[in-house]
């Protein structure tokens, strides 16, 4: 080691926690990290509040936070918003669970047997590139405006993406694990159940979490086009009467549900896959 290099290790330990935030690939203290995240969130709220209360922007475009809160109250009190939220969550989860239950076995088979991969990959790749909004007319013609057409639309949007992600998760399982299983006497089915599945589970849960997020995007499309219930419908109906605070309230509801679900799954991921931490 040449002399002028400062002792980086001890330097890092005693370094001001704030400075680490600005260092290339520096590691921030978790509390500080969270604090800054909350602060930037509050800063945006305050800026919004100030701009709206001072009347700089027409409230038709940007209602004040208080106006949105009132709208939230009205929605729950007068319009049974709880039922709309419930319907939306129901649609998202049914479609998501159906997609996952189909994609997990098929994805594993696609990566494990060339015949399944060769047959399905071109079809899956093709459908994957079809934009979901373009499929809305078809689902309406085929299935009408009932629950089935909405769930089908969500399924179309997620299943074909998910199956490729799952196949990739299975493919990335080190071949040593599979060969170990073989030399211990496992058959194909046992290899998939006892080795591939647990080995790929952490990355699979991550992919499921991301897919669940897409479900919400497609849900709003489905509910805007043809529905008389659900958060998307509430947003669209409010737009028709230029009730901007209600539109904001609907959008916020989706954001909050998404954030809470995502954090819950991340938390469960950390708890379940504690063995991953070295």
């Amino acid at each position: 080691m040449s002399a002028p290099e400062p002792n980086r290790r001890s330097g890092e330990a005693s370094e001001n926690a704030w400075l680490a935030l600005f260092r290339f690939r520096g590691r921030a203290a978790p509390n500080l990290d969270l604090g800054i995240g909350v602060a930037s969130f509050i800063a945006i709220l305050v800026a919004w509040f100030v701009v709206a209360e001072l009347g700089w922007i027409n409230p038709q475009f940007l209602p004040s936070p208080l106006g949105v809160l009132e709208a939230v109250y009205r929605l729950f009190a007068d319009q049974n918003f709880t039922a709309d939220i419930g319907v939306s969550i129901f649609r998202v989860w049914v479609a998501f669970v159906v997609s996952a239950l189909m994609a997990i076995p098929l994805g594993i088979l696609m990566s494990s047997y060339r015949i399944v991969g060769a047959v399905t990959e071109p079809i899956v790749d093709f459908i994957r590139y079809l934009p979901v909004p373009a499929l809305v007319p078809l689902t309406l013609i085929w299935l009408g405006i009932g629950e089935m057409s909405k769930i089908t639309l969500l399924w179309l949007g997620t299943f074909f993406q998910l199956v490729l992600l799952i196949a990739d998760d299975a493919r990335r399982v080190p071949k040593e694990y599979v060969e170990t299983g073989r030399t211990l006497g496992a058959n194909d089915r046992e290899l998939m159940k006892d080795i591939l599945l647990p080995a790929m589970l952490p990355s699979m849960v991550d992919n499921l979490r991301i897919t669940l997020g897409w479900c919400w995007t497609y849900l709003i499309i489905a509910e805007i086009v043809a529905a008389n219930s659900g958060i998307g419908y509430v947003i669209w109906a409010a737009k028709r009467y230029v009730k901007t605070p209600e539109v904001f309230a609907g959008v916020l509801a989706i954001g909050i549900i998404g954030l809470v679900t995502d954090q819950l799954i991340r938390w469960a991921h950390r708890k379940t896959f504690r063995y991953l931490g070295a």
Partner: protein
Amino acid sequence: MVVNPFIAIEQVCKTFPSDAGPVPVIDNVSLTIGEGEFVVFLGPSGCGKTTLMRMVGGLDHPTRGLIRLGGEPVLGPSRAKGMVFQSYSSFPWLTVLKNIRFGLKYRDDVSETEKDRIARHYLDLVGLTPYADFYVSKVSGGMRQRVAIARTLAANPQVLLMDEPFGALDAQTRERLQVQLLDIRHAERKTVIFVTHDVDEAIFLADRIVVFSARPARLIRDIAVASRVPGERTLDNRESRPFLELRREILAIIREEAQRNEASLMAAG
């Protein structure tokens, strides 16, 4: 020293396909291994010694020739041929004990309670009883390899195949594991094929060292270590004159082989 040809490698050739046509990796190797022998495959990196061992395990297949285990042709992997890899050798989603227990999962010749007993036995044999309930990500690299050895032994294979199992470990850990492997081997009397490019490791562990040429692998020397290096295998023995002489001799063979290989590559290129 071969009593009965427990493992017979008969005129085995192997080529890998490539864009420039088939590349030979193993060139007509014949070899027999007796039951209970500890044979080390030694050779330069990438020479095909691992491929040969994998073929004994049924994980690769000869292009030509045949491999027999106990007289029967090897057609694919099975519980008779246990394998210990250098990396990804144990399952991160299981604890130490459950990893070892996994070795017995597909045996139907023993009851569940017997499986628990056997798993505990091998856990103890590799000295990991205090770590039984640790996930393997929480134990050291050396312990992970011991887990893999115990798991493989628990499956009760006829032959133990080890693919540079200590290659990724630091020198001190590696030495300790070599000693422990000899102890385990005395307790178990398994036939072992051990692949390495570390000459010291080879002499220390082997009854017999088979030296391979650079790719394509040909058998260039078959050395009965016990007749060359007398005495018990201890760390002191590694400093003994016969040990060092054999070491010098093998290094010379390998160096010569590497030079010849380089020269032929130059001539070809």
